[in-house]
């Protein structure tokens, strides 16, 4: 079983590494993007890295499907979040004629 062999070679550590890479990429995207939609994309990346963690831990520990269920919840939550986020972005655009978050600093103290 090639597949088995492969799977045996690929352990929890690999999954966490991928997850970490995706998380850091998402974080980098959130921190550096000026575009609001870009930030939302970064947030999606972070959420997905969390999903990978959930499934990986689930697979390698208890053997039941708690992690998978959580991941589905998170995907659903991400969809809802995207809706609200995009609505906010739309609102920002209507008020500021821009979705550059550098321009949106009305809360400055």
């Amino acid at each position, binding site marked *: 079983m090639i597949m088995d062999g492969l799977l045996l070679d690929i352990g929890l550590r690999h999954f966490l590494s991928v997850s970490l890479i995706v998380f850091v990429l998402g*974080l980098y995207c*959130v*921190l*550096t993007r*000026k575009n609001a939609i870009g*930030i939302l994309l970064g947030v999606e990346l972070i959420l997905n890295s969390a999903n990978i963690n959930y499934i990986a831990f689930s697979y390698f520990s208890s053997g039941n499907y708690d992690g998978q269920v959580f991941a589905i919840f998170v995907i659903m939550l991400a969809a809802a979040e995207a809706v609200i986020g995009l609505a906010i972005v739309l609102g920002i655009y209507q008020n500021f004629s821009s979705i550059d*978050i*550098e321009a*949106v*600093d*009305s*809360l*400055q*103290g």
Partner: protein
Amino acid sequence: MDHPLLVSSLRWIVLFPLLGAVINGILGAKIQERFGKNGISVVACTAVGLAFIFALRAFFQLTSLVPEERYLLDTLLRWIHIGALQVDIAFAVDPLSGLMILIVTGIGGLIHLYSIGYMHDDEAYWRFFAYLNLFTAAMLTLVLADNLVLMFVGWEGVGLCSYGLIGFWYKEHANTTAGNKAFIVNRIGDAGFTLGIFIIFWSLFEAGHGTTAVFRDLGPLIHHLEGQMVWGVPAATLAALCLFVGATGKSAQIPLYVWLPDAMAGPTPVSALIHAATMVTAGVYMMARMHFLFSLSPVALGVVATVGALTALVAATIGLAQFDIKKVLAYSTVSQLGYMVLGVGVGAYGAAVFHLMTHAFFKACLFLGSGSVIHAMGDEQDMRKMGGLREKMPLTFWTFLISTIAIAGIPPLAGFFSKDEILWLTFSGGHPLLWLIGFAAAGMTAFYMFRQVFMVFFGENRADEHTKEHLHESPPVMTYPLIVLAVGAVFAGFLGVPPALGGSNILEHWLEPVFAGGHGGGHAAHHHVEVIEYVLMVASVGIAAVGIFLAYLIYYRQSVSAGTFTAVGGGVPYRAVFNKYYVDELYHATAVRGTLAVSWLCSVFDRNVIDFIVNNVAKATGAVGWAVGRFDHYIIDGLVNGLADVIFGIGNRLRQIQTGNLSIYLYVIVGAIAVSQFLPRVGADILVPVVIAFLSLVIVVGIALWLSTRRIQWRLMFTKEGVSELR
């Protein structure tokens, strides 16, 4: 007489006139508007009439008792009870005050009636009667008071009413001035009176046998004053002299008599009631009341007698040369009061009260008669413009003549008996010089009174045509009181016919319970008749006849010119008498000017010293206030504002952390999470100091940053400009 008869009706004698005064005083203007002037006079006369009825009742209650027990008491209120001082508002009637209330309410009532006619055309009718009733109430309080303090209340009350009535026609400045003069001069006397009360009270207390202000209890206690000294003077003498000062004020004796002639500015019924019949006799009454005190001090009695005799003479001489019909009567009153005081001074208290009573009748009659004349003459008071009024005013003339004969001392009219009793007791009491003075004054009295009669009622009428046409007899409401008073002037004397003339001196016996035990009280007892008494009697009738005859020659027959007398001694004596011995001028130059000078000095002192101090205190306070204000402004406000600015600056710095930039927030969050990963590995003992040090560093760096960016110097925080710049 340890148990006085308690009679609760005595209070009404005082309260009725008081009630009348209150009604007329408060509602008078409305009553006069609605019911006319009759409403006023009905209230006033009823009040006095009721008082008279109650006075009569008290009098008859008195006569129903045996002489030793003749004492009625009515305690109305407890008044002042402090320590040894026990003073009640209590009214007492003994033979002396019984007589006085009859005089006050009787003659007062007649004068009330007379005033109805005399004041009929006056607008302030109600005010007049309110005052008159108030006066009656005050006078009755004075007379009925059973203690010195309440007597003083009445004493002040009559003074106040006298002041109000002298200045009754207050639109004339001279009248108000006369009122002021009377009031101020009386004030001097009143000061003496109060001092006298205090000395009696205090010295008795010091003597250690108890003290009191009640007359009845003072009598038995007063001998404890003997041996007491106040400021090196025997207490009895000092107290008696102080009381006498009060009497000289109220009873117009030298040196305080000057107010009485000026008091004639008031309406004539007032002159009759207050300044002839009642109030001015208050001093005599008071001394008679306090006879036990005066009898303790021969020195005081000597002073009293001398002053009385001199007053009788001096006033009589002034009366010789006056032309104002009321001024003559005023000086005559002063002179007659001098006789009464002389009577007190020689210990003849009964005789003094006797003369007080007869004088009340004939002098009230004379004043009311003169009022009738003035009324008919259209307010003319100068006798030189009168004359021949006999036919026009027969009733006034006859009553005036009767009273004149009475005052001149022609028997058997009232004045003869009373005046002669005083003169005889003066002589027999061992004061021949004082007798001589009184004797001379008696002659002058006869002269100036008949001079007045001849000038007013006989000869040609010297008035102008207009006045002549209006001459008329006064209405009955004015003449009837005259008739009653004239009858009194004829018959009052028979109450005191001396044993020498076959009488029994009823009045003397009546008053005996009051004056018994006094120094002069015994004189009623010695009934043996001396030849010299008849000689003196004839002499005084003789000198009166001489006076009358002289007046007849000069002013009726005009066979002797008045100039022969006025020219005596180059006219100097005449001018002195005519100008009243310049006493008013003397008082003006000394007392009045002196007072004004003192008040001027006080005002200078006030303006230059007091004001200086006050102003500088104000300035100093202002300076201190300014300094405090500066301190407050720069130091306190500077600190407060500075602190506020420091806080503001820090806040302003920290505010800038809130950039509103999402990226920065995210960096901070991520950084904080990263740092927090390391913190749990550090112990709390290191963490807390590190956090505190970090926050302190933040604050210090914040302040430093703020100061440097604003380029603020510390001193700027403590100046106004700096503070405003900070803002």
